[in-house]
């Protein structure tokens, strides 16, 4: 149990995907304009990521390793992520209009989130167990959501700032994200992963 908790902390804080590993920066900066959007994106990513991690573990162990097809890893993981996206989309549409309203527009955007592929590949490279892989995905989504929420808050505050003309727009957002990354370096040493 403690080990699983450490995996979550490591994935969410110590090796935060957006701020420390710099994966998934594009959707992070794209969806962090307002806090509501940030939360929606984070939830959608969490759903897809967990599904994709589970499915990719199954594919990895019962197909790729059984038939010695490891060189097809990248290809099959991309397919699995696509399948998880569709699954999440269809399921939310049929079963929960509330979920559909919350996550609907973000799910297709996750297709281009390299953090999702990153998590799946890292799980495979570290040969994590099924449960550990799921916890790692959960931690990664938590970290992604945290980075998004913090960035959204900061960006809303930036709108009332007096940023120099040359830095208005994406430039100051990148500077802010950079300072946020510096702050997240304070978590180094909490867990070794």
């Amino acid at each position, binding site marked *: 149990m403690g080990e699983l908790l450490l995996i979550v902390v490591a994935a969410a804080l110590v090796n935060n995907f957006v701020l420390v590993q710099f994966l998934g920066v594009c959707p992070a900066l794209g969806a962090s304009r307002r*806090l509501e959007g940030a939360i929606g994106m984070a939830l959608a990513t969490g759903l897809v990521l967990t599904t994709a991690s589970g499915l990719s573990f199954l594919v990895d162990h019962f197909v790729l390793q059984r038939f010695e097809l490891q060189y097809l890893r990248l290809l099959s993981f991309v397919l699995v992520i696509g399948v998880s996206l569709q699954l999440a989309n269809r399921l939310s549409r049929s079963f929960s209009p509330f979920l559909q309203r919350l996550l609907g527009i973000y799910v297709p955007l996750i297709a281009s989130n390299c953090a999702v592929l990153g998590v799946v590949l890292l799980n495979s490279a570290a040969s994590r167990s099924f449960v550990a892989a799921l916890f790692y995905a959960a931690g990664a989504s938590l970290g992604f959501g945290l980075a998004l*929420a*913090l960035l959204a*808050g*900061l960006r*809303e*505050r*930036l709108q009332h*700032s*007096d*940023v*120099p003309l040359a*830095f208005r727009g994406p430039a*100051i957002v990148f*500077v*802010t994200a950079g*300072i*946020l990354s*510096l*702050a*997240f*370096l*304070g*978590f*180094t*040493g*909490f867990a070794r992963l």
Partner: protein
Amino acid sequence: MTTGFELAPAPHARSLVGVPLMMRRVLYALAPAAITYVWFFGWGLVINFAVAAVTALVSEGAVLRLRGRRTRVALNDGSALVTAALLSFALPPLVPAWIPALGSVVAIVVAKHLFGGLGKNLFNPAMVGYVFLLVSFPVEMTQWIPPRMGDIDYMQLSFSGQIEYSFLGRLPNAVDIDTLTRATPLDIVKEGLRSAHSFAQLRGGSLFGDFGGRGWEWVANLIVLGGLYLLYTGTIRWQIPVSLLAGLLLPATAFYVLDADHYAAPDFHLFSGASMLGAFFIATDPVSAPASDRGRLIYGACIGLLTYAIRTWGGYPDGIAFGVLLMNAAVPLIDRYTRPRIYGQG
């Protein structure tokens, strides 16, 4: 009804205390601690402050000129000096001069003026400069020296020796950087607890005084005095210092009561490192702190908790800087969820 006048939003009362007076008060409050610091650790602080202050003022003037703004009011309001002072308190006394200079430029230009200048910074400028330096130059930023106290064997550089090292990088003959530097009490405790020494054992070492580290606890005492002066004059409010120290004290006491051998004592945490400096001077920067009192309590408490966590389980010996920056990032969220209730609306 249009009147042809543009009315600024409320409140319309003007405070008698302007920014220059507030900044001056902060500098006065830091003075006793600075004198003690120089007494124990040599002239490094003064040299660092001089370099940082000059660089801060020059870069602030340069940025304002580039933006086509007037420099006289901004340069005279003392805010750059306060940033430089806090940065030099955070740096080791024995650093090359380009370290405070670079940190100052980053603090003033990046953390303050890129976001709009005075009153618009999202993050604490001094802490941004410090963390930037700590992460980029770990070797220079961890060269601490022992205090000048009776029974510790130390060697101290003279004033000219310090200047020579700072600006030219030269040490006097037969003096190696290793002879001059020593680990800080926080470093010793962190390493010692990790290699299974008991805290009581570590506390008996020559670098440890009554509460915190020798020399350091005196600086911390005078920081508290300065902080109380600021509270008395109304320059800062009590919510952040009290909640920060409580956030640090509560887990420290809890863990120490449970296992006194493997965790540092609460009074050690309070009087070591930058706890007091952070509580009274760094976290209280009104711009990067929450706007409501309830928000401030949450903010301070979380900084204290983060500091304790980083000191105990993280990789860095002191967590105040990272704690402050992380909570600066959370301030918009804190403000959103601790909005004061508007009269008449539930």
